[in-house]
Structure formats: structure tokens, C-alpha cells
């Protein structure tokens, strides 16, 4: 194995530019790389497309702000692809006032679209969304009398991920429910930037315990 570059969050996000498509791991902020989000926010990059399960939590009354919410509030996205935006009222406002294009995708379909991109599949057939607005514009394929939607792969330029532990080659271990979308996004982006709580030597992670193999990781960023 060769070592992957290790750099600061500020340095790592420099390659992200206006128009970039970014995937961000996490679920309501749990498993989202906070240092990378903060650095990207500070960098001020605009017109990005976000692919994330949700737009996390933004509750100004309680001073609560998690996950990708800072980027949403600062209007960094021209498009947001997510399964849930209900806990960040600013996303809904931007959507309703046509400031940001928001595409809602069922969570399981989102996961499979991302996995399909990483796995080289041309698409997958899911029963989810049949008979709902989700089927609009999609090919419906009937198999054995049952209808399925053909859902296409979803790629990104960058994946911003959060790991509990990374070895220097880029093998990753995630913690508890902070795993969520992180391992599948690792497969589906051209450049994968991983913020790791702990960075260890190659060989220190048991090969049976690796949750995302080193080949997907491009850059490792220590948590600030």
C-alpha cells in the first residue's frame, strides 16, 4: 500500500470549486465531517450541487445547527439532492421561493443510486415510489406483473466523509450509526476526502474490520 496525502481541511477543500458536485456523508449531522464543512463554508464556494441524505438540523430558536446546515444557510448550493429536509427549515424556504432547486429522493433509492454509481451498475429497479410523484419522468419496468422504477446511478466529483479511524493507506472504520452513507459515497466520487478522528499506521487495522477499503480514499484530513 502507498500512503495517501494527509492535509488540513482548509487545504483539502481548495480543489472544490463553483459548480462541483459534492456528496456528504452523515444523517442529521451524525457522521458528517465537521472540519471539512467548516473549511468549505469559510472558503465560500458557491453554486455547488449537494448530495446528502438530509440537510441536517437548523433550529435558530435553539441555536442548533448540525451537518451541512451551515452551507445551506449561506446559500452555497444551486441544487440539493436529499431524502429529507424537514429539520432544516431554511432548505424548505429556499425551495419554496425557488432560490435553490431541491430534488427529494426516497432514502433507500438514494442509497442504491449512490451504490450503483460506485458498483458500475447502469441502474437498479425499485418498487419504491411507484404510483407517487417520484415516478414522474422515470422508466417503469414491469416484471412478473409488478411495477418497478428504473433508477439511475448518482455520481459526484467529491465525497466528504467522516471516519472514526483511518490508516495512512486510507482504510476506514466508522463508528456506530455514524457509518450511514459514508461507505457507499466512498465508492461513488472521483475524489474522496476523509476526515478521520484517528490516523494510524498501515497494518494497525485488522483487515476483517475495514469498512471501506483504502482504494476509495484520496485524501485524509485529521479532525481539527
Amino acid at each position: 500500500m502507498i500512503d495517501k496525502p494527509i492535509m488540513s481541511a482548509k487545504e483539502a477543500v481548495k480543489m472544490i470549486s463553483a459548480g462541483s458536485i459534492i456528496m456528504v456523508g452523515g444523517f442529521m449531522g451524525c457522521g458528517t465531517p465537521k472540519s471539512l464543512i467548516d473549511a468549505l463554508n469559510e472558503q465560500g464556494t458557491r453554486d455547488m450541487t449537494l448530495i446528502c441524505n438530509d440537510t441536517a438540523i437548523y433550529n435558530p430558536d435553539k441555536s442548533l445547527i448540525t451537518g451541512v446546515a451551515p452551507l445551506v444557510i449561506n446559500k452555497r448550493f444551486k441544487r440539493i439532492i436529499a431524502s429529507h429536509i424537514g429539520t432544516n427549515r431554511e432548505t424548505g424556504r429556499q425551495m419554496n421561493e425557488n432560490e435553490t432547486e431541491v430534488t427529494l429522493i426516497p432514502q433507500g433509492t438514494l442509497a442504491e443510486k449512490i451504490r450503483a454509481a460506485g458498483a458500475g451498475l447502469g441502474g437498479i429497479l425499485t418498487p419504491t415510489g411507484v404510483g407517487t410523484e417520484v415516478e414522474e419522468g422515470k422508466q417503469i419496468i414491469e416484471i412478473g406483473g409488478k411495477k418497478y422504477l428504473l433508477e439511475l446511478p448518482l455520481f459526484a466529483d467529491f465525497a466528504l466523509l467522516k471516519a472514526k479511524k483511518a490508516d495512512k493507506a486510507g482504510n476506514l472504520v466508522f463508528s456506530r450509526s455514524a457509518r450511514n452513507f459514508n461507505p457507499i459515497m466512498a465508492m461513488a466520487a472521483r475524489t474522496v476526502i476523509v476526515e478521520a478522528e484517528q490516523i494510524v499506521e498501515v497494518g494497525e487495522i485488522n483487515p476483517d474490520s475495514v469498512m471501506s477499503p483504502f482504494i476509495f480514499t484520496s485524501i485524509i484530513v485529521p479532525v481539527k
Partner: protein
Amino acid sequence: MDYTPDKSKIAKRIARFFKSGDIVNLGIGLPTEVANYIPSDVIISLHSENGFLGLGPAPKAGEEDWDLVNAGGMPVTILPGGAFFDSAMSFAIIRGGHLDYTVLGVLEVDQLGNLANYKVPGKLIPGMGGAMDLTVGAKKVIAATLHFDKGQSKLVKRCSLPLTAKGEVDYVVTDLGLFTVEDGKFVLQEYFKGCSPEFIIENTPADIIISPNCKEVEV
């Protein structure tokens, strides 16, 4: 009859559905409360769609682990024998028919078994999250809802809001009674003590038939 909303009746009645070994997903909000009423001799496992099985109660204050949250993003615990996995596996479990029950809140549910709970066009658009997969994938779908919202019945002939899923609802439990959905009609199976079938039928703008086995139940 006076109507006083009572969410606890819904949670209590749904908690009686399960048998030991069942794998269940409880939606955020009212469905979550079902967990508080499951009889101690019934051992079910709760699935959390953000990526684990064996969802346990909230931790004590000060013992929160922010890497261990429920689908609402709030700290929870995992029971011995639980297992974590990624989102693709979590929804493989859901879509693949490996859940015995899913319990979801609703904005509207209709007599065709259609359910709407993710979008009020032009107003509230929280998104479907995992709800579309859960309703399509779980073996049995239980809609959990107060019978009325601002005087309007949540049980209708046809949903007017965008659907979460088409024809997937098996049971509706409100604070007035328990319904199945059969052949395009609600079938009243139980009315809860303090209510009557007549009251339900009069105040619900949907076709309801009374099951021959319909009975009064105390919850």
C-alpha cells in the same frame, strides 16, 4: 360524545400488535411512543433506518454518544445483540421484506390504503426520508394518527396530498379505533372505550364498514 385527542391510546394499542421475534421500525414522533408500551414479555427488535438494529431507549443525560442517534438525529442506545450497518444495507433490510411491521405517522390515509405524509405542496415539504421504502417494503404497514386534526378526519376517501405509497397500508390505528383496509374500504375492527362505531362513521368522510367481529376495546 366529546372528542379529546389522546395519542397514548394509539401507542398503547399498536404496542399489542407484536409477538416476540418481530422486527419493527417505528417512525419519528407518535410512532416512537409505541416502544413505551410493549409488554415486558414480548421481545421485539427495533430497526433504525439510519443504520442499526437493536434500537434502545434514550441514554441518561450526560451519557449521550453523538455517534449513536436515531432517525431523528437524537441520541439513543443500542441493546446487546444489536448490529450497525450502512444505509444501503439498512434499506436492503427495509425493501427486502425483512421487517415485520412499520409504524408511520400520516397527514392523510385513504380507504384504498394510500398514505400521504411527506409533502404539502407550497407549504410544508419535509421530504419522504425512509417512509416510501418502509411502506413498500415492510410486511405490514400500520398508520398511526389522531383521528382528527383541527376538526378534520385524517381518514379520507381519497388522499388529496401527494402519496407516500399507493395501496400499502394494512392497518390504521387512531385514538378512536383500529381499522383494516380491505377491498377499498376501511373496516372497523375495534372501537376504543368511550367511543362508538356510530360516532366514528358519522365523523369520518370515508367508506367504513363494521367488521362482524368488531368489538369495544379498552386501551
